[in-house]
């Protein structure tokens, strides 16, 4: 597994890699880290490299796509073990043979499990099933010095030791290279139905979302699309047939209208595209305020009852002003796509009082700051 010189496409967020390696076992990952010095940026399929700030350097791009084994699926225990380079869709195909799924639905085509963990990617169904932090029950990581360490395990209920999976989730490889993952699974729902409701403005979207949130309906997703003034709210029901039917009817009654459909519209679950795309997180009920704070021409989707939205905004958007406007709602805005590379402050926004602690965690795990340097909040 000799390193090869990086080509044109071997770049991370606009920073070219000097060399590229593609190890195929955890042992090889450890060997790479032990036998090299300098900066290392781990990448899966590379579908979300724009989700973190550009690295301050990339001596070695470490592709995890060679770690591609589905190690174990125990249907009776509703768990699966798969290496970091396994594409989510490949795992889903395998699980579906037994009527099960990993309840994560980030839309990036070809995304790997390791990349999804590193970027903490989620999709609309987070409303029902949560995100990586709720489903990842075990993890194996190679640290900057080559140490091979596990945390968690293969059982869902487990409080032995620190839950390091939470720390690695969303760390973009800056604490270690995730090499294998263990997941809690769910049964595939037997039936699907959607209710689509046109929405006049942000205030109405907020009212309707609140009605759903405060009802006993159990949609797996409630997605709002906003674009050029047009707005549409979709409720997705996934359960047994009788429940989907009854809940869809109740949703139409509750919301005072809406079209029932057998599947959600084509835009459902897609990320907005453009030269500057943001992920916003905020107190869930603040949805109307968040929409109002977005600049003219913004379009995107909001997971309406959870407090997360994705918005394509004009490239000249004043990010500092936007962040200040949504701060009262515990709001944050992080870039997920940018035509021009931005520095960490622009990418992530301001740091909070926990940043000193974050720095200490990074320095414990990676004292030489060689893993994904500069990619995290505050340029860590």
């Amino acid at each position, binding site marked *: 597994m000799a390193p090869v010189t990086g080509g044109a496409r071997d770049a991370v967020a606009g920073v070219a890699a000097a060399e590229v390696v593609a190890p195929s076992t955890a042992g090889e990952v450890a060997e790479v880290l032990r036998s090299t010095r300098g900066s290392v940026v781990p990448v899966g399929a590379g579908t979300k490299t724009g989700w973190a700030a550009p690295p301050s350097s990339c001596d070695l791009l470490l592709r995890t796509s060679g770690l591609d084994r589905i190690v174990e699926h125990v*249907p*009776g*225990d*509703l768990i699966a073990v798969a290496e970091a380079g396994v594409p989510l869709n490949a795992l889903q195909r395998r699980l579906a043979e037994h*009527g099960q799924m990993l309840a994560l639905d980030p839309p990036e085509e070809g995304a790997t499990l390791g990349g999804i963990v590193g970027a903490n990617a989620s999709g609309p169904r987070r409303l029902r099933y*949560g995100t990586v*932090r*709720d489903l990842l029950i075990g993890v194996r990581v190679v*640290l900057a010095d080559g*140490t*091979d*360490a*596990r*945390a968690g*395990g*293969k*059982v869902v*209920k*487990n*409080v*032995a*030791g*620190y*839950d*390091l999976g*939470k*720390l690695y989730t969303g760390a973009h490889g800056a604490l270690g290279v995730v090499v294998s993952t263990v997941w809690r699974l769910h*049964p*595939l729902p037997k039936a699907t139905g959607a209710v689509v409701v046109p929405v006049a403005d942000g205030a109405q979207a907020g009212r309707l979302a*609140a009605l759903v*949130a*405060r009802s*006993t309906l159990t949609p797996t997703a409630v997605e709002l699309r906003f674009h050029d003034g047009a707005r549409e709210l979709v409720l997705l029901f996934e359960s*047994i047939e*009788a*429940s989907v039917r*009854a*809940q869809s009817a109740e949703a139409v009654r509750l919301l005072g209208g809406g079209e029932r459909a057998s599947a959600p519209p084509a835009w459902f679950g897609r990320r907005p595209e453009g030269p500057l795309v943001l992920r916003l997180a905020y*107190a869930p*009920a*603040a949805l109307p305020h968040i929409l109002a704070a977005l600049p003219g021409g913004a379009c995107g989707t909001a997971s309406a009852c959870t*407090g*997360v939205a994705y918005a394509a905004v004009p490239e000249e958007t004043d990010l500092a002003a936007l962040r200040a406007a949504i701060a009262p709602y*515990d709001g*944050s805005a*992080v870039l997920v796509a940018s035509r021009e590379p931005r520095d960490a402050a622009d990418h*992530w*926004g301001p740091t*909070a*009082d*926990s*940043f*000193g*602690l974050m720095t*200490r*965690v990074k320095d*414990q795990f990676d004292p030489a700051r060689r893993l994904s340097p500069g990619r*995290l*909040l*505050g340029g860590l």
Partner: protein
Amino acid sequence: MSRHLVRESATAPEEAAPRALLLAQRLRGRIGADKVLTDPAQLRTYECDGLATFRVRPAVVVLAGHRDDVVETVRMCAADGVPFVARGSGTGLSGGAMPVADGVLIVLSRLRRIVSVDPDNARVEAEPGVINLWVTREAAPYGQAYAPDPSSQQVCSIGGNVAENAGGAHCLKYGFTVNHVTGAEVVLPDGGVVHLGGTAPEHPGLDLLGAFVGSEGTLGIATRVTVRTIQAPEAVRTMLVGFRTVADAAGTVSDIIAAGILPAAVEMMDALAIEAAEAAVSCGYPEGAVAVLVIELDGPLAEVDEQFRQVETIADARGAFETRIAEDDAERALMWRGRKSAFAAVGRISPAYYVQDGVIPRTRLPEVLTEIGRLADAADVRVANVFHAGDGNLHPLILFDDTVPGAAEVAEELGFAILDLCVDLGGSITGEHGVGVEKKSRMARQFTSADLDTMQLVRCAFDPAGLANPGKLFPTPRLCGERPGVRTGADTHDPALGEVF
């Protein structure tokens, strides 16, 4: 709870901890004399938590009346290098809140204010001493509830729940404390205050909150906690099913999961646990049952109705000889009373007992029960089994006579043998009670030294001096910092042995 096997601190605190006593004097001036206890008679109350077999008298107890009392106390401890332990309601079963002999025990049970109830955002913000059930009580008028429901929910505190990542019967469907905490204000072991998470579902940067929840008090003290509430379900249906064999009951659980049904809870009790529950609370469980399941489904009415019928069919096919369905809340409460009182109930059929908490892959349930039976017979000890069967979380209740010399040790050995069995089958040494002081020696059975050293990195980031709840969770001391041989304080001695200079 068993009364023997008590490991007391060898040294009296007034001799052992002059540093802590000097600190107590200064603390009285800062936060008020009435909040700082050093009288041995008063300290005795705080010698142990729910794991009464481990007792250490702390040098000082601080009854925090305000968040700032916690900050002041931790700052002073940090300045003087005095270890401290946080305590909520003291119901923990692994000794997580066992004091340190030369240290300060910071009692949080007076911090019991509900800060805010925000049904629109489905959040409740509470101080750490707030009782778990109060959160649901506060949310109930808005049709909401707090999902984690440990059996001790009428007395255990939110701060303790966060420290232990508390579970409960309904975490099969709804997850654990960590899945429901969105924010916390934390006093770090150096006395600094940070805010992790918040009201929003995510925040830029590392998920320090995720690492903090379940860290058993070793990373700092939460002084405010924001939790997510859930909408109370439209329908809840509960059944109690009696079986003639444990294998039939376990098979029913597997069949329910295989049918793609995710119940809110699936609980199991074996014959001895049933006998105890009957003796204690007369819950009227099916006569002659070798195992019972309590199965609860919740959600939209149409879904619950259909799946409930399916579960009945599945249980019948596995030879259920009696199925009772709760017709109202009172009947449901009775079904749950037998289960939730099981621990205490065992006191009716045995002079003393010892509770363990292990996890196995659910599919291994029948073989684990057979093996536990074999181990129990070999040790000539009776074991009553109570499980969260849906997620493979075992609570073997090991019965012994505390008037017989050595019986407690035999019980403890059997408990550890059961934990080893859990690890060998791919499970865990704890599903919800935590590692604490009781099971730290077992951590090395479940994790490699590389795994444990990696966890210690987090400890060293949060608490380089090792002052927060030392001697818990980790099996062996480890020093923070890179110079070997230089003592920086983390876990350098067993706190139960008193102060070491």
